[in-house]
Each structure stands twice: as structure tokens, then as C-alpha cells.
């Protein structure tokens, strides 16, 4: 509907002559449920997704057809009981390529993880493997009573797209437990497509988005006001009002509730993307959604002014919250998710600083 307004990069790699071997085993029941929910969350974005095994772990990526939503879930190798991703270059190929991203149809993978709660009870082990000669990925579920379910899924070799989005440039960062976000979202009807998040340093408000031609006599409007105290971390540099799709966010929330990791929200003014991300030792996920750009609003605030405004607010903000350092804590543990460009660092120090 509205494009993400991001740069996209294609990871280039030559696939023609290269072997690849992937083997990962999910054992812990918890992990399997988390992995299954990640697939379900990805399914909200698009019909297909990239299965992108890397040396450090496995990434699942997806972009919707209008490129207004991007999702990436990265599981570190430690997430799996056993993870091995090796690439064997052919003799003629000098450069050793590590990744073989492959595109899978979400419909073919969903049945494997259809009912996550049942999986938790019945499946003892899940192994995902791919071997060079066969052109498919194998999901094998080892269930109780010796039942083994094997799914051989063919894939298409294809470069994954990655959204280039510098989260640390966003003036507004909220960090909140996924439970709270889910509690907020249940108030909106399932038919609600977009919601507006508006923030000021004093309050946060989620409300139903209404188009200009909305018939108010037919539409129920819902609004939820939250106190900044309810957030684990609260930084508002610019008063803003962003409108985004609820569908994808609902997917992320179902997933993050399974991991019970807080969700960070990075955003700017309207028209710029909003990122919802979760991060812990074993996995990282980020969902980047386009926000509605209202042309009139943009025109009303010419660039120089808004820049000034930003500076002022930044100053105010640093007073407001005490020490705010822009020290770049370089996330060295994992490759960054949203982008492979060097603009992406985690504001680790910033995010962990408590409010008050």
C-alpha cells in the first residue's frame, strides 16, 4: 500500500557451482515452539521467504510484494542443539561462498509447524538439513512413539533482499514487554488494518487509523493511552505520529511472546519506517514496516526547520533523561540483522539505560 521507503540491497553470490551442506537440529521443546512461531510470524509478511543459512546461524527473511514490510529472524548457532553450515567450493571456484540463500514457499513450510502447541508435546527433535546434490531442504520431525515425519521441500535459489535501515538514527525508541504490546493490540478489532502510534515525552497513544473519507457513523474508533512509566525504556526525541499495518505486528507479537523478550520500537516521523525488534543471546528478529506518509504534513514542515527542531529536542531529551551517550556499542556477537551496511550498530548502552 505504501512503500517502505528504504534502500534495498541484494546479497550477491554466485550459486552455479557451489556446494552447500546444512544441518541443524532443534531439540529443546521450547526452541521448537519458538522456531515454529517465527515461521508463523514470517508468514504474515509474504507468501515466500528466504531461508538463509550463514556460518553464525540461520536467518529467515521475508519482504512483502509491495515492499512495505520486511522481516528477518536470525537464530544463532547456539539456538540449535547442533548447527553446522559448511560450504564446499568446487575446484574451479576460487572464492568460497558461505551462504546459499534459498527461497521457499511459506505454504509448504507452514504445515510442518502447523500447530505449535501440539509440536511442543509430541515432537522430540526436529532436524533441518540440506545437501548439495539434492535440490531440497529436509525438515524431519522425530515424534514420540518413534513416528518420523519427513518433509522434503524444493527451493529456488534466489538472492535475498535486505532492508537497509539505520535504527540508531531514530530519535524515538521505546522498549516494552511484548505482553504489554499484545495487551494493547487485543483492543483493536481483527478487521483493523492500520493503527497510529503517537508519542510525546509525556504520553504514548495507540489509536485506530481513519482515512480522510472514513464514515465516522459506521466506524468504531479505539484509542489506548499509556503512561511512559509502563515502558522498560522510553526515549522520545521528536513528537511524532506514525501509521502502520497491524497484521505484521500481530505476527511478531505472537512470536515474541513465546520468547518473552522485550520488543524495541525504533521510529521517526511519519513516512519513515518503523522497526520492531527483539534480541537476546540466541536470536534476533526485526520487523520493519512502512509508515503512512501524509503529504500535507511533510509539506508543512520544511527540512531546515525540522532539523533545528530535532537538535533542540535532542538537547531537551538528553536533559530529560540524564546521561544519554551515543557511544557506539558495536554489536560484535552477531551480524546485524536489518542491514549489512556499516551504519547499523546497536545502541546497547542507550537501550539498557533505565528510565528515571
Amino acid at each position, binding site marked *: 500500500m505504501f512503500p517502505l521507503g528504504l534502500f534495498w540491497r541484494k546479497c550477491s553470490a554466485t550459486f552455479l557451482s557451489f556446494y552447500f551442506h546444512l544441518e541443524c537440529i532443534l531439540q529443546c521443546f521450547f526452541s521448537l515452539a519458538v522456531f515454529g512461531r517465527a515461521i508463523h510470524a514470517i508468514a504474515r509478511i509474504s507468501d515466500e521467504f528466504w531461508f538463509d543459512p550463514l556460518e553464525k546461524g540461520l536467518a529467515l527473511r521475508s519482504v512483502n510484494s509491495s515492499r512495505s514490510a520486511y522481516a528477518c529472524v536470525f537464530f544463532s548457532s547456539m539456538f540449535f542443539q547442533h548447527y553446522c553450515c559448511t560450504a564446499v567450493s568446487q575446484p574451479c571456484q576460487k572464492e568460497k561462498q558461505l551462504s546459499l540463500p534459498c527461497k521457499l514457499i511459506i505454504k509448504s513450510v507452514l504445515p510442518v509447524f502447523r500447530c505449535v502447541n501440539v509440536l511442543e508435546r509430541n515432537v522430540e527433535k526436529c532436524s533441518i538439513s540440506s545437501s548439495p546434490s539434492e535440490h531440497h531442504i529436509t525438515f524431519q520431525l522425530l515424534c514420540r512413539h518413534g513416528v518420523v515425519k519427513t518433509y522434503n521441500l524444493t527451493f529456488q535459489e534466489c538472492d535475498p533482499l535486505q532492508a537497509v535501515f539505520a535504527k540508531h538514527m531514530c530519535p524515538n525508541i521505546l522498549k516494552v514487554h511484548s505482553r504489554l504490546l499484545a495487551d494493547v493490540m487485543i*483492543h483493536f478489532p481483527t478487521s483493523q488494518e492500520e493503527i497510529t502510534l503517537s508519542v510525546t515525552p509525556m504520553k504514548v497513544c495507540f489509536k485506530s487509523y481513519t482515512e480522510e473519507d472514513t464514515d*465516522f457513523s459506521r466506524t*468504531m474508533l479505539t*484509542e489506548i*493511552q499509556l*503512561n511512559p*512509566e*509502563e515502558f522498560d525504556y522510553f526515549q522520545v526525541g521528536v513528537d511524532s505520529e506514525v501509521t502502520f499495518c497491524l497484521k505484521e505486528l500481530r505476527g511478531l507479537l505472537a512470536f515474541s511472546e513465546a520468547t518473552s523478550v522485550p520488543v524495541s520500537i525504533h521510529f521517526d516521523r511519519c513516512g519513515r519506517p518503523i522497526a520492531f525488534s527483539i534480541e537476546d543471546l540466541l536470536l534476533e528478529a526485526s520487523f520493519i514496516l512502512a509508515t503512512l506518509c501524509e503529504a500535507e504534513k511533510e509539506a508543512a514542515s520544511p527540512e531546515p526547520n525540522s532539523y533545528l527542531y530535532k537538535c533542540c529536542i535532542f538537547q531537551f531529551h538528553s536533559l530529560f533523561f540524564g546521561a544519554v551517550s551515543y557511544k557506539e556499542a558495536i554489536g560484535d556477537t552477531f551480524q546485524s540483522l536489518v542491514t549489512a551496511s556499516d551504519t547499523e550498530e546497536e545502541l546497547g548502552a542507550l537501550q539498557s539505560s533505565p528510565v528515571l
Partner: protein
Amino acid sequence: MRFRAKIVDLACLNHFSRIINTIAKLAKTCILRLTVCKLYFILSDKVANGGASMWCELSQGNFFDEFQMEGVAAEHNEIYLEFVPENLWRALKTAQNAKAVKIKLTNKHCPCLRVAVELPSLSSSSRIVTHDIPVGVIPRRMWNDFREPSVPDFDVSIYLPVLKTMKSVVERMKNLSNFIVIEANLSGEMNLKIETDLVSVTTHFKDLGNPPWASEDGCQSSAQGRDLESMAEACIDIKKLLQLLAGQQVNPTKALCNIVRKRIVHFILLHEEVSLQYFIPAVA
């Protein structure tokens, strides 16, 4: 015109939302009539159109801790609003552990019932969720369309069996036919029948009892004059009946139905201070 009400008690809130849920399942849109001491939910689909009618009545004192209303004029101290009960149900279903729910008539973009739910939060102040439910204000000249329907001059009045049992029977019959015949007599027997080219199914209920109706105009006496064993039957839309049975959130303390042969089936469900009447016209 002013209206403002507040529910604090959780049990009252849950009871109220169950009633709204029942109504939402019976009517896409309905009329909410407010008077100083009562609320009415009214659905008056014209019988000529094959629709069903509903009349649900509850005393505000049993639910609301505060209830203020001011009608259009002192001599007509009532308010009639048209709204979608599903919207109100949506607002209330996520308010199960609310500290307080306030309902207020407002007029911002359009006339609205504003439902403000105060929920407990992690911080010291509560979390406030507001829903603006659009309503249409019914002008006074149209109030007459929504008068309480009179109890029809029925052939048979009978207590219903446990609604859950009845529901599971009707649910299965629904798969076989679009219409169901309800028949009952004055000696406590009721049958639910479906008939198609391939199959006929009848479920018999016995010893249900016939409610005593105080006779004003000889209604009871005329019934007495009738053969106690003879069945009065009406064929109705099975979906309409199932809607009523499936929508019941609490088993009513009293449930009965009145049958006017080949014309209408009139259901009355009583639960404490709430009464629900539902009229399903017979099909030819």
C-alpha cells in the same frame, strides 16, 4: 440529551457483557432505549420480511453504579439509539478485569457511545482504553416503531428443556434441513422435527410443564377448552432458532415458548432481572 453510566463491580460488568454478547449474536444492529431505570435492547425486523424480533429488558440498578440520563424533554425522558451491538461487545470483552467502565453519549464527529475502560497497568496510573461506538439517534416521531410487542394469543405455552440439550439437537438438525418444526401440547410434550425428501428426524421431549398464564380475557380458559394432547405446530427458520440457542451465555432460570399455530413462535428467557423475548415468524 445526556447519558452517562459507570460500572465498577466486576461481577456486574461480566454479567452485562454476557448480555451484550447474547444480543450481538441475535442482532446486527439494534435499538438501545434508555429510560431512568431501565435499558432495553430492541430488534424489530418486520415480520413481513421474514425477520425475527427481539425485546430485551434490564434494570440499570442491577448493573450500574452510576446512571444518569436526560431525555429530549422532561415529559419524554427517554433516549433511543441505533447501534451495532457487536461493537459494544468488542469493547467489553477486553474489559474483563477492568477497574471501571464508563459509558457516555458524546457527539464529536458524530453521535457516539464512548466506552472508557480503566484497566490496571504496570505503572501507578491506570491504562485507559476508549472506544467510540457510532450511534444513530432515533427521532421521537419514530419511537412508536419500537413499542413492546404484546404476547400473542398463543395456542400452546410450554417450558423449554435445558437449552444446551436443545442446542445440540438443533445443531445437528441444521445440517440436514433449513427449517424446523416446533410442536407442543398442553400436557408438557414438545417435538422438534425436520423433514426432507431423504430423512425425517423427530426429537421428543416429555414432562416439560406448561406455565400457568393468568387469564385476563379468557386466554387460559380457552386453552383449557382445548384438547390437551393436540399439538400446535409452527415451522421456522432453523438458523434463527440456533442463533438464539447458541447465543445464550448463561442458562436462564426460566425459558419458555409460546406457539401460535402456523404463525409465530415466541420465546421468553428470564435470568434474574433480565428478560429476553424473541419472536420467530413461521414460514408458510
